[in-house]
């Protein structure tokens, strides 16, 4: 970007003006109204995320699930915890998407004028976006960056119907953590429960389709709105969930590290704690990835002199 494109005229208009007739005062006023543009702080586009990854290493977290499962709320409530203090043994360090977080949080704030907290629906027209959150662990102030995917649930419904679409989702290929959302609200309803499980099963199978080799990616089954499954009334749902989790573990056993989390990001009941179960989930996203051994990469067929350099791999 050149200096010229960096500068905008806040009062720009398209009217024809003969600059030679303008007084010195006009010119000086125009200069004083010039402003330098700053990068926007909404959610990151794929291009923004690529640029960021050229600058800094970041763990990519893909949040996968159909609409109304609580994907966005899960992430924005994690962010909101840092507005109240440190969280999950980490300090807030930086975010390139502060306004993006705030826009999604606003309907959960008293300032919005709402009586019940909500999260605005993510539109499929927005495509793939990312929240950026950099955290420093409290003990050593070591920074770790997260790029957390934000995509409309309708897109995942399409993946359910046509699993090959998953190959076109870069966040799934590059994620170090893939979070499959199990909608607790649907589990609480016996008529919707099995469909909720079927949704996660289909998306999990679609993911396995695009990752045929073992990888360092961790698979996470995250049940949202778990507060709706508590108490005696939820016993059946909890039992069914446990059975489903076991079967899902079996589906990916030996290929991925897999864990289940039960969360209640925003429990509307009076006096309830926010962000229940979110701390261990966030900490799992921040885990350092085991470094890839160069030797573990399969040796390709050597066809020219430069390929011979591969023979020296790992010897330095």
């Amino acid at each position, binding site marked *: 970007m050149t200096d010229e494109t960096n500068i905008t005229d806040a009062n720009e208009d398209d009217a024809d003006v003969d600059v030679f007739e303008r007084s010195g005062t006009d010119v000086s006023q125009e200069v004083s109204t010039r402003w330098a543009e700053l990068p926007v702080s909404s959610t990151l586009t794929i291009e923004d995320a690529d640029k960021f990854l050229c600058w800094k290493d970041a763990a990519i977290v893909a949040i996968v699930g159909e609409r109304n499962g609580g994907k966005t709320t899960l992430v924005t409530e994690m962010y909101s915890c840092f507005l109240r203090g440190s969280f999950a043994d980490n*300090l807030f360090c930086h975010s390139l998407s502060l306004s993006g977080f705030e826009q999604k949080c606003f309907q959960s704030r008293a300032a919005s004028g709402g009586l019940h907290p909500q999260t605005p629906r993510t539109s499929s027209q927005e495509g793939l976006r990312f929240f950026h959150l950099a955290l420093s662990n409290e003990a050593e102030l070591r920074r770790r960056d997260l790029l957390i995917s934000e995509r409309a649930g309708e897109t995942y419904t399409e993946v359910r119907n046509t699993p090959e679409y998953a190959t076109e989702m870069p966040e799934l290929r590059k994620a170090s953590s893939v979070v499959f959302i199990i909608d607790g609200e649907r589990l609480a309803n016996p008529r919707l429960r099995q469909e909720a499980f079927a949704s996660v099963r289909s998306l999990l199978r679609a993911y396995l389709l695009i990752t045929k080799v073992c990888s360092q990616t961790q698979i996470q089954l995250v049940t949202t709105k778990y507060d709706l499954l508590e108490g005696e009334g939820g016993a059946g749902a909890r039992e069914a969930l446990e059975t489903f989790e076991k079967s899902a573990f079996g589906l990916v056993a030996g290929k991925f590290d897999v864990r289940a989390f039960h969360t209640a990001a925003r429990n*509307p009941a009076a006096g309830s704690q926010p962000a229940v179960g979110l701390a261990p989930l966030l900490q799992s996203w921040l885990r350092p990835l085991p470094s890839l051994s160069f030797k573990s990469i399969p040796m390709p067929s050597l066809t020219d002199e430069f390929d011979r350099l591969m023979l020296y791999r790992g010897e330095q």
Partner: protein
Amino acid sequence: MNTNFIIMGLPSSGKTTFLAALWHLVEANEVKCRLKFESCHGNFSYLHQIAEAWRTFRRVPRTSQTGEQDVIIELINPDTGQKARAFFPDLAGETFDRQVEERICKPAFVEELSKNNGILFFINADVKEDGLSIGELNARLPAEAQISAISSGEDSYKESTKFQEWEPKHLPAQVKIVQLFSDMIRPPFEPMRRRVAVMISAWDLTREMQLTPEHWLATHMPLVSQFLRSNHDYFDYQIYGVSAQGVRLEDDQAVDRVLHDLPSRRIQIVGPNEDSNDLTEPLVWLMSVKE
């Protein structure tokens, strides 16, 4: 040696009141200060205007009302003989609001920040709970008034859920402040380790809390506190509590009580060292930090 300072802060964060009190302090020479007034050049009408309001217990006019003014005060450290030309571009708080909300800023400001000048960053201690969640608000209401999403019927739930559209102006103050700090570590600003004196203004309002300025920031602006702690590579900072006005102007009895004392004694500053009336202390710290 010329030392320039940049004053930053959202609207009504106490920037101009600080300048007015600082000008009186060094010009009147009533109490012991680390820096003393050395000489004056140029037009002092703006400083006289704001200092007059400060001395006569009137509200100091906001920069947006008087027009932005660059202020230059020549100071000397009598202990070391070190001279300093303190240049304060007094930007209106609205300029910083626009930086956060419209994502634009003045190129001259970018240039000033690239010179690694010391920064006086003002935060008003009179914070609003602008980040309060609906859940937190409901929890504070009496039980009968609490709105439970569980007990509400679906229809009444929909009727009662009318939200304002989000606009950047709705960002909570602590998020705006973190955005301003975050901007300094990305282009077009030149990333470097900057010296920042965080000035928590209207400090007299916090007296009953019995908190140090550092604890106040961690309690009332936790996002800012975390950001500064975890960005030590970019910011070398000290936190001060400042009461430049000294009294609540609406409290006639309090004003009457201080009328017969030296105006400079109204000023209070709480820093890492002892409490004093010396507003030049953060300036001395900013000048002393090695690059």
